[in-house]
């Protein structure tokens, strides 16, 4: 028994050390046409906490490509309240906005206070405080960055969200979850066989994915907090490409049990499979529309892979893509107005289509892109690309202007999925 405790302990320690090494870092490759100059001054008492706040806020805003974080290192400019700010110096330094704050220790909790100031008018755009334990400071930092982003750009941020992806190292596969900035990677599943297609439940608490640990593709649902998982689809043949319904109660999956690859709906516990797709030898990559009333999917029914939309019983199938001989892997934006997908256009590239006007725009110039998914605010798209023949993650803004890479220190990183906002 005691031995078991220590084994578990050793395992956890190993896990902890691997967490520290596995962090990805964001590299900005392209920035927006407009960048808001912002000064972020260190918060009062910040250095007392092992997890500082302002570097995380600055990194979030900087890597978004729409902010230019200015350096105000001169201690004489340091201020912890709006009244104490040296507005003339800020203006002279080109700052349009300033962020200041304080951190107060309250027993075991930390109270974070911050202000967002419009420098020219000296107006307080945000005055806010939030309480949390020290190990929640990173998430609070992302939430503060989201508030600043939303106030200034008029659109919601997505810094306080998580991503899932598959890390491949030789013959070792790990399904991992990390913060949207690549920090704090944690392993959900380890296997010597491939893992693919992680998809977030709408509440962010579970992942559906495909694992080949039984020498065949089987769809699992995995509860992140408990590690509890169950089989959602294991019929004869292949079981692949899970997609959550917006209410989190059903999955669309692709089964080959009846011949060809066909889309079915199953309940999340795997019960009650019923067929959706009719016609075509291949129907796959299902994804629900935001209203839950129809699905988008890839089908070969017209002779080449193209994206279609149909009702949940497969009726009224309508082809959405006509340009090019290969269009696949569709995902609908959170507002339901756009879809992102992969189009073959001198290589496999990320594209966006306005579902209303049907106008499309290719966003990337790489050649081996895959698995695009929208950030919960719809402003960014996370996808897999190849750099030096190595799978890696990248992010592009929905207008194609801002580009980032998530650099992993080890292994290939594939099949990303951007999860919902953390509350």
């Amino acid at each position, binding site marked *: *028994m005691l031995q078991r*405790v220590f084994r*578990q*302990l050793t395992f956890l320690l190993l*896990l*902890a050390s691997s*967490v520290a090494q596995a962090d990805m870092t964001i590299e900005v490759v392209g920035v927006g046409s407009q960048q808001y100059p912002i000064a972020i001054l260190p918060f009062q008492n910040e250095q007392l906490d092992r*997890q500082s706040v302002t570097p995380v806020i600055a990194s979030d805003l900087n890597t978004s490509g729409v902010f230019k974080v200015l350096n105000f290192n001169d201690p004489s400019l340091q201020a912890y309240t709006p009244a104490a700010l040296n507005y003339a110096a800020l203006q002279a330094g080109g700052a349009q906005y300033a962020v200041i704050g304080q951190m107060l220790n309250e027993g075991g909790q930390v109270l974070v206070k911050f202000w967002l100031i419009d420098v020219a008018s000296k107006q307080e755009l945000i005055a806010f405080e*939030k*309480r*949390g*334990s020290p*190990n*929640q*400071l990173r*998430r609070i930092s992302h*939430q503060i960055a989201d508030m600043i982003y939303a106030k200034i750009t008029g659109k919601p941020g997505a810094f306080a969200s998580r991503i899932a992806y598959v890390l491949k190292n030789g013959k070792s596969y790990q399904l991992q*979850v990390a913060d949207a900035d690549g920090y*704090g990677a*944690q*392993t959900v*599943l*380890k*296997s*010597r066989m*491939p893992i*693919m297609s992680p998809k977030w439940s709408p*509440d*962010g*608490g579970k992942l559906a994915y495909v694992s080949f640990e039984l*020498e065949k*593709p089987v769809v699992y649902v995995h509860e*992140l*907090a408990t590690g509890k*998982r169950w089989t959602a689809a294991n019929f*004869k*043949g*292949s079981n*692949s*490409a899970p997609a959550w319904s917006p209410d989190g109660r059903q999955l669309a999956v692709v089964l*080959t049990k009846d*011949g060809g*690859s066909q889309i079915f709906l199953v309940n999340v516990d795997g019960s009650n499979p019923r067929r959706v797709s009719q016609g075509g*030898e*291949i129907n796959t*990559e299902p994804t629900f529309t935001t209203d839950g009333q129809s699905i988008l999917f890839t089908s070969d029914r017209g002779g080449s*892979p193209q994206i279609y939309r149909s009702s949940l019983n497969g009726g009224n199938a309508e082809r959405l893509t006509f340009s090019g001989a290969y269009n*696949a*892997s569709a995902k609908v934006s959170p507002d339901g107005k756009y879809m992102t997908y*992969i189009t*073959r256009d001198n290589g*496999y590239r990320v594209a966006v289509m306005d579902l209303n006007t049907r106008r499309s725009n290719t966003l990337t110039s790489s050649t*081996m892109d*895959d*698995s695009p998914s929208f950030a919960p605010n719809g402003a960014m798209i996370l996808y897999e690309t190849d750099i030096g*023949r190595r799978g890696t993650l990248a992010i592009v803004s929905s207008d194609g202007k801002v580009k980032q890479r998530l650099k992993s220190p080890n292994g290939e990183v*594939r*099949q990303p999925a951007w999860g919902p906002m*953390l*509350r």
Partner: protein
Amino acid sequence: MKKIALSIMMAALLGACSTTPPAAIVDPAAGNAGKDANSSEIKTVDTSKTSGKSMYPELTDPSNVLSQRRVYFDYDSYVVRPDFNEMVQAHAKFLLSHKDVKIILQGNTDNRGTAEYNLALGQKRAEAVNSMLKALGVPAGQIEAVSFGEERPLENGDTDEAWSRNRRADIVYSGEQSQ
């Protein structure tokens, strides 16, 4: 009693060495603490396991055609090439004389295109071998056709040679671990 004491100790130990990643945010406004669906704590599941070994030496004897397990396909093709007829026929014969033995046919593709669509394409390669075995009289109950899509290349790289090595269907006997 001893058990309880140990589990308390274990909980304390686990608590002591837990890493920085935060639990759910405690938002005083919401007055809500503890684990919610958004909790950041994650437990790892490890599926690694040891391999089984086949009971039939002829399946792994290099001088026996049954040790050949890979059926290669031409670009964009889902038809078994004539040069693999003899090998597939040998497997059919073995399965017909060993009714209790089962196989998994694993289709594979190169890495061009999306992973999920490639999984569906790989399925077509497994089904091509499946159809041939069935035509030779092997009962459907002895065969399962599945796909690994682009997930298990024999060769990495974006060259014609690598791609042609990856366009294949592998025959795996039950109890074996595919390579």
